[in-house]
């Protein structure tokens, strides 16, 4: 023990590290009282980020970023018991990063902690939010299975909507004419080197600023921020009721961080990493690419907006969001911090959370996607095994109607449910609709023989509720 202490004394003498580290660990922090647990989100994000780096390095030691081989290396990693867990931690960690950084940003916003003197804290944080989302996107892509491959194409197409430079930008993302040999390496370099370098830069600055400006005290209604007097007032507050960060306050960060890491590890062990889809063969047409859950809401929004607004939303939407994040501390840098005096902050946060949850759910169901795995209607539903109704049921499946329409629970939900179509529509109305199509339905003019059409109409007219058991006729 004495030996250890002597070694430490020598080390400290030649590096001066304790003179630098101890004030940081013990820097005074205002008493957060009832809001104390709200302050753990930033450090939790940092802990998960470190988790991502550690598991990322482990994965990178086996992953080969070759377009032709990446998929196989992932099969290899997932096949070993520990490799499976490492992949799982990395995948759940990515979701945790998105959740925690979002929660942290919301907490800071609601508490008005982006105001003076912490405007640069917010700006560097906004950069970190952007980088986290980019890491999440490029990371999922590195699986380089069917979904990963097609997400590059979709990203390039979205970038292609940029005016003037769209085509060039799209091909820059692909690193070529098509998604090929150079594409994956580009994203690997971005995910492993380029964006993390930016994150380290911004994170270092962000943490320095947290120490320099101090942790914000919980806001109180009636106590607006005045840049002229705030710093002096804050120092006095610390002198009165400041607690040393370590260990009086940091214990909460440790406990919450521990819980988060345990949950991630637990999920990785029990549920495991996301299953790998089919290999990234562009000639496998049966792909149904979907983004990860944290982008599902964006996927739904892009699908539901009117066609003419698409270019504007794809390009201006994120740009507008970025502009708002940047302008917030610049235009609202002083004044009341308490959310009770800033009721719109509740509305905005509720709107964002609701939008992500609501559209995320819609994106999961994706009602606009044809259910291309629909099977022909069973006999019990058709009701007969011969005649025009039975032939019509075959046409109903063959011609693709069932991919978008439901009959008795079978089929897609893009178009109206036709289980009782015979009750609401006449044969003439049915024929008109089949021939003219609609905004979301193709027209079948020239696509049906007269025989097919008449049996299809007969089938649809037969879709009715059963007549009442007691006849009312006398």
């Amino acid at each position, binding site marked *: 023990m004495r030996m250890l202490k002597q070694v430490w004394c020598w080390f400290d003498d030649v590096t001066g590290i304790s003179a630098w580290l101890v004030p940081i660990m013990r820097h005074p922090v205002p008493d957060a009282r009832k809001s104390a647990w709200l302050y753990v989100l930033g450090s939790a994000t940092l802990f998960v980020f470190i988790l991502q780096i550690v598991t990322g390095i482990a994965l990178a030691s086996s992953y080969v970023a070759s377009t032709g081989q990446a998929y196989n290396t992932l099969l290899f990693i997932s096949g070993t018991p520990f490799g499976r867990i490492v992949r799982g931690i990395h995948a759940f960690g990515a979701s945790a990063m998105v959740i925690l950084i979002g929660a942290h940003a919301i907490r800071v916003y609601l508490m008005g902690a982006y105001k003076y003197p912490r405007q640069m804290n917010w700006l560097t944080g906004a950069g970190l939010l952007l980088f986290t989302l980019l890491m999440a996107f490029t990371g999922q892509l590195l699986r380089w299975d069917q979904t990963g491959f097609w997400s590059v194409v979709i990203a390039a197409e979205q970038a292609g909507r940029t005016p003037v430079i769209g085509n060039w930008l799209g091909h820059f993302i692909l690193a070529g004419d098509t998604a090929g*040999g150079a594409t994956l390496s580009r994203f690997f370099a971005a995910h492993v080197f380029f964006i993390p370098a930016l994150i380290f830069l911004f994170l270092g600055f962000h943490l320095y600023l947290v120490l320099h400006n101090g942790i914000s005290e919980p806001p109180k209604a009636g106590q607006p921020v005045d840049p002229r007097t705030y710093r002096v007032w804050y120092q006095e507050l610390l002198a009165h009721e400041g607690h040393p960060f370590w260990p009086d306050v940091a214990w909460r960060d440790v406990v919450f961080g521990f819980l988060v890491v345990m949950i991630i590890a637990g999920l990785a062990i029990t549920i495991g990493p996301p299953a790998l889809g089919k290999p990234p063969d562009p000639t496998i047409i049966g792909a149904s690419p979907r983004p990860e859950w944290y982008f599902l809401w964006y996927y739904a929004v892009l699908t539901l907006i009117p066609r003419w607004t698409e270019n504007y939303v794809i390009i201006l939407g994120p740009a507008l969001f970025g502009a708002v994040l940047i302008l917030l501390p610049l235009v609202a840098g002083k004044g009341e911090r308490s959310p009770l005096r800033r009721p719109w902050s509740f509305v905005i946060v509720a709107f964002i959370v609701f939008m992500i949850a609501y559209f995320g759910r819609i994106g999961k169901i994706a009602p606009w996607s044809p259910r291309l795995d629909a099977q022909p209607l069973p006999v019990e539903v058709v009701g007969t095994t011969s005649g025009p109704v039975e032939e019509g049921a075959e046409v109903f499946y063959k011609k693709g109607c069932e991919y978008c329409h439901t009959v008795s629970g079978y089929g897609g939900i893009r178009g109206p449910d036709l289980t009782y179509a015979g009750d609401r529509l006449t044969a003439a109305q049915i024929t008109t609709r089949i021939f003219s199509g609609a905004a979301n339905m193709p027209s079948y003019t020239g696509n049906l023989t007269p025989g097919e059409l008449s049996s299809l109409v007969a089938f649809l007219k037969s879709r009715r509720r059963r007549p009442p058991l007691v006849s009312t006729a006398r």
Partner: protein
Amino acid sequence: MSEVRLPQASAEVATTPCQPEEDRRKFLTRLSISLGSIGAAVVAIPVVGFLLGLRKPSFVWRTVGKLSDFGIGSTVKVSFLDPSPLPWAGVTAQTAAWLRRVGDHQFIAFSVDCTHLGCPVRWLPDANLFMCPCHGGVFYSNGTVASGPPPRPLTQYPVRVQDTEVQILTSPLPIT
């Protein structure tokens, strides 16, 4: 004992700066910034040039089958190799297309990329329609938009018949 008088601290020098010193400092600062900028530029040119220059557009006719492989009126999926694929591209070096023979020597080749946001469209032979799984885009057999969000008809690749071989001209991924 004579007293040794130590030279005065440099504070005296700082309070009365002389012009040659100032000029020298300005020059050295400018020299550092210039050399740093030149050094950065010299390195940046090859680095950025490499990142931007990986795209080499080229067009190659690729054989996708023999004339006798394709029946008139049927639409089939064909695949062909990218022009000058990189050796490690593996299975990703392929591109798919929907090929339809419309006459003795006439073919139409559709790109599988939906014109909305690039997902692969499926050909449904009984329904005579192309359907996209992503956002519900539907195309008629001639490639025009039947319903849904796609803004343009399916892109077509140039097709030709050389002797008895059917060939498609490789093209960059259609991005607006």
